[in-house]
């Protein structure tokens, strides 16, 4: 059982790391602010979500697992809000290149 959980953790955290890598590449390579934001929020939402999912079986009891989920939800909220605000500034033409 623990062997399969280990496999699950490694697979999910690796997939999460891949999304962070893809998001970082997108942030550096995409042409304008809006598509860069798109790449960045993918890293936050999917990447961190997969890392969190992979770490769930290793959490120290139910409370610690809930804290992990809660951290992810807070980051989701923050990244969604901040990207909206950055996008609004970018649309008004305030984007610094």
């Amino acid at each position, binding site marked *: 059982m623990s062997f399969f959980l280990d496999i699950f953790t490694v697979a999910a955290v690796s997939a999460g790391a891949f999304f962070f890598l893809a998001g970082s590449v997108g942030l550096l390579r995409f042409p304008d602010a809006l598509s860069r934001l798109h790449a960045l929020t993918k890293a936050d939402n999917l990447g961190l979500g997969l890392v969190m999912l992979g770490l769930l079986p290793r959490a120290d009891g139910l409370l610690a697992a809930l804290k992990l989920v809660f951290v992810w939800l*807070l980051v989701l*909220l923050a990244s969604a*809000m901040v990207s*909206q*605000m950055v996008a*609004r500034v970018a649309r008004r033409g305030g984007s610094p290149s």
Partner: protein
Amino acid sequence: MTIASALALILALLLVAIAAWTIAARQTFAAVVGFVAYGLLLSIGWVALSAIDVALTEAAIGSGLTGVLLIGAAARLRTTEAALSAERPGAPLRWLAAAASVAVAGAIAIGVLSLPDPAPTLAPAVAEHLPSIGLGNAVTAVLLAYRGIDTLLESIVVVFALIGVWSLAPDHLWGGYPGPRQYADPNGILAYLARVLPPIGIIVGLYIFWVGADLPGGKFQGATILAAMWLLAIMAGLADAPPISRTWLRILLVAGPLLFIAIGFAGALTAGAVLAYPDGYAKLLIKVIEAALVPTLTLTLALLVAGAPERTAPP
């Protein structure tokens, strides 16, 4: 080389690289962004060293609060920045500054590298006497029991910093509202966040203050989170900072340090030394001091960001 030491090496190289970039960046705003990223990476470094208390403080104060203050400063400097960066100091001055920096860094490096191994430490003595204080978190015990005078001066110095910021106000605005009145779309995303996040943030901030007795956390970190929630409501236009002439505000600003001083001097009578606690009451008194410091620190940190008075006081 193990994976852990390889990760530590990568982290250290990243820290040095981003520190160098922060110094080399030509634009003030870019340098501030570099400084914030440096602080966040540094707090990961403290976590790697198992110093969670330091990591929390670095993330909250070193990176978060200082970062906000520096962004505000950079925004104010924007109009004069082009003129200032045009006049570069001459080559001799720059070489002198570089030589002085290298000398200081070198002296620190020699000092750290020539420490005896194992380094001299009081950690076993602290751990041995921890049960007599009644706290589970050795960092809180050191800060409030063994080095109480440092923490006392620290809590006074932030109030002095706030007085320094306030004293930048012109005479006719003295006693007025700090900073400009913020307006945001009441149905917009910022106002939404300022309604959803504070209930969560206030609980997390109070929890981090309360849990500091036994686990990593404490008044400074908790107060920073509480101050951030207040600032969020202010920036979304849902609340306004109080005019600095308010009596309740001034009482709360000095209440924490005053109570600390009072309990400290009471220790001279009850426990035989200033800032000592009588047997059996150490944990209670420490929590009372921390609880009194939380409102003081929350107000001080938030009003530091809000800035000098810019609107006239109400009649």
